[in-house]
């Protein structure tokens, strides 16, 4: 990941890559700079600023900027606006490029060349990179570069971004001083529509002159789409794909997750043996090692999940999935693009919220982020397992259905329904009457390239480990501190946590949580549970003065709480966990992704209110039913 490198290369002329979405611009950027960036088919994937360094054959140092893909210089989304602002020199803190490389998909000149004409009018030095010439040749398109260059009045070079030497001609061109000469702006500023139609006319004449005015069919892509987008076959196929991904995330990740848990425990024990007992040992073992282990344990799920998302993105399937789900999501005011982030949130809300970057519309993206934590993440499972195991009888109802399984299923459904209701309310009260248009390109299918997927996965893992991991670790240490200090007074009889800051906080919270049936033990355990939901299980174990660790806790705890809590309290706690803004890492991720504290604070506030309300209703109904 080279995102941090960006501001290092302040010297050297600036070269900007501009092009339609899906024209292979990012692949060319990778080829030119060798920097580790992502290439995919999903329209509008380039939302982050990407800069790299390039040394030409003659030894010239250049900065290369990969601008977000755009269809025109009349922006309709925030990322298109970036492109426009940079090119016109209005972007804040951004130098106006010294040279623009217009990347053009050779298989789709008709649409791509209009943007070239618009960029040329800006008066910046400009060259055209005729990309994907290999695919064009396969389709029988041979573009006469010299003739095109003469017609456009701009230098034209062929590039094949996915080949090792595919950018050689472009590099040679960059060493020619004439390439960097500024031309006079041809700015006769007509209205946007006039320009589009006028440009279209120019492009048509050029293509006619080159004998390229026939639209070519995408035979292979169309054959795949006949199945994938089939009104009857398409949705079941999508369901199968999503089911397999979901299955893989849980099944494949189980073994490595166990390894990580075991390794964390072994490491903790080993370090505990090396350090003298005391606060330092506690900090390192219970704070740092357990905290880091709690983060890393989700890595297998995240890697598997993002592997599939990247393959779907790379291949071009993701926009098709969005198409198939558009109607469904449209009912609650979202677009099909929100589906994948929400699905990811069943593993963990953090990758789900990170995956929301693929949503171009700002409102849709925010709403998706806001409802993502309501998808039942895997960290809730240990808590659900404990409570269901302790309170729901193990028997079959309605001809063979497991009652415990039914309750778990209902908890999943409750989260989904809650999310849909919130999205619907937001649509009802915040969305403009008109929905954001779909108008989404379905690019030609490509075989995913291993290199691109590896780069993408590496970026995701680094974001998770470095940024999120750092926050989680810091919070874990903070919560360890709260739970460990001050030490219990001499002669204390209760669990040490009871006398700590967390304990005091828990006792105070018990006043708040009393009306929903939580006793002070539960209230205390919710405090360290802010680090990660499943920590609540071991925290309850600590509060009930159990010395067992990990999985044993749940086993020993179940009969204990079954004995000391009422069924109403247990149901109330389950309802709480469906909605509660539990883990601070999620809120920290939201802060990162939305660029401020406003959204995470709103999220924490509304989820807290929702959780409290749900628990209150559950508790009162259960009491009325005589389960108190």
């Amino acid at each position, binding site marked *: 990941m080279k995102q941090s490198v960006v501001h290092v290369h302040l010297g050297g002329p600036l070269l900007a890559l501009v092009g339609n979405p899906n024209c292979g611009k990012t692949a060319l950027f990778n080829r030119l700079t060798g920097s580790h960036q992502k290439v995919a088919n999903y329209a509008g994937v380039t939302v982050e600023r990407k800069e790299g360094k390039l040394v030409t054959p003659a030894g010239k140092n250049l900065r290369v900027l990969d601008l977000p893909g755009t269809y*025109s210089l009349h922006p309709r989304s925030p990322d298109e606006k970036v492109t426009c602002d940079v090119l016109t020199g209005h972007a804040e803190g951004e130098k106006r490029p010294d040279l623009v490389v217009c990347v053009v998909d050779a298989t789709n000149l008709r649409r791509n060349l209009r943007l070239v004409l618009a960029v040329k009018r800006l008066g910046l030095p400009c060259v055209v990179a005729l990309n994907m010439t290999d695919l064009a040749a396969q389709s029988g398109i041979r573009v006469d570069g010299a003739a095109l260059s003469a017609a456009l009045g701009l230098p034209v070079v062929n590039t094949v971004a996915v080949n090792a030497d595919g950018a050689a001609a472009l590099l040679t061109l960059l060493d020619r001083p004439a390439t960097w000469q500024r031309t006079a702006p041809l700015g006769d500023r007509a209205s946007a529509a006039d320009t589009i139609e006028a440009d279209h006319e120019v492009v048509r004449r050029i293509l006619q002159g080159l004998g390229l005015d026939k639209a070519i069919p995408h035979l292979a892509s169309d054959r795949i789409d006949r199945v994938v*987008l089939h*009104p009857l076959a398409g949705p079941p196929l999508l369901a199968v794909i999503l089911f397999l991904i979901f299955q893989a995330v849980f099944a494949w990740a189980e073994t490595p997750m166990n390894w990580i848990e075991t390794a964390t425990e072994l490491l903790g024990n080993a370090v505990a043996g090396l350090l003298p007992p005391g606060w330092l040992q506690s900090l390192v073992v219970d704070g740092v090692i357990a905290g880091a282990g709690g983060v890393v344990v989700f890595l297998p799920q995240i890697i598997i999940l993002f592997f599939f998302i990247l393959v779907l993105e790379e291949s071009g399937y993701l926009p098709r999935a969005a198409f198939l789900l558009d109607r469904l999501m449209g009912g609650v005011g979202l677009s099909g693009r929100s589906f994948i982030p929400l699905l990811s949130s069943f593993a963990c809300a953090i990758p789900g919220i990170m995956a929301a970057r693929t949503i171009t519309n700002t409102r849709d993206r925010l709403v998706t982020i806001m409802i993502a934590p309501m998808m039942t993440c895997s960290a809730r499972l240990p808590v659900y397992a404990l409570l269901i195991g302790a309170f729901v009888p193990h028997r079959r109802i309605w001809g063979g259905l497991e009652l415990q399984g039914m309750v778990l299923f209902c908890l999943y459904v409750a989260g989904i329904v809650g999310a849909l209701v919130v999205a619907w309310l937001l649509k009802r009260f915040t969305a403009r009457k008109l929905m954001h*248009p779909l108008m989404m390109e379905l*690019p030609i299918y490509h075989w995913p390239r291993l290199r691109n997927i590896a780069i993408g996965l590496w970026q995701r893992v680094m974001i998770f480990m470095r940024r999120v991991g750092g926050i989680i670790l810091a919070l874990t240490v903070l919560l360890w501190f709260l739970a460990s200090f001050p030490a219990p007074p001499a002669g204390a009889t209760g669990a040490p946590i009871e006398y700590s800051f967390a304990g005091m906080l828990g006792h105070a919270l018990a006043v708040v949580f009393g009306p929903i049936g939580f006793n002070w033990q539960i209230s205390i355990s919710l405090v360290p549970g802010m680090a990660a939901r499943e920590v609540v299980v071991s925290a309850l174990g600590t509060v009930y003065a159990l010395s067992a660790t990990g999985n044993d806790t749940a086993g020993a705890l179940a009969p204990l709480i079954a004995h000391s809590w009422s069924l109403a309290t247990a149901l109330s706690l389950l309802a709480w966990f469906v909605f509660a803004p539990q883990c601070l890492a999620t809120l920290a991720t939201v802060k990162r992704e939305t660029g401020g504290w406003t959204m995470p604070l709103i999220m924490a506030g509304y989820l807290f209110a929702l959780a409290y309300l749900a628990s209150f209703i559950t508790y009162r109904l259960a009491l009325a039913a005589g389960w108190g």
Partner: protein
Amino acid sequence: MTLTLDQLPDLQSCTVTQVAPPASAPEWHDWLEEIGFLPGERVMVMTRALPGGDPLVVRVGSSTFALRRVEAACVQVVKEHGMADEATA
């Protein structure tokens, strides 16, 4: 009665005559033109989602786009043989 893209049967090739956005979303005119729905361009509905035939998959020129039905309804078209001068397109 003007024919619009959403009314076409699947795989019927047509030619765009103009883009007429709803009064509530005049910006759609430029947006649709920018992605290729320009007068004289050939368009064709490839398939539709179920239920309700919304959204649609539309081929315009060499590109494929997913449009909602309200968006497709902005694109006015004529059937191929009605525009002999566009035979080269």
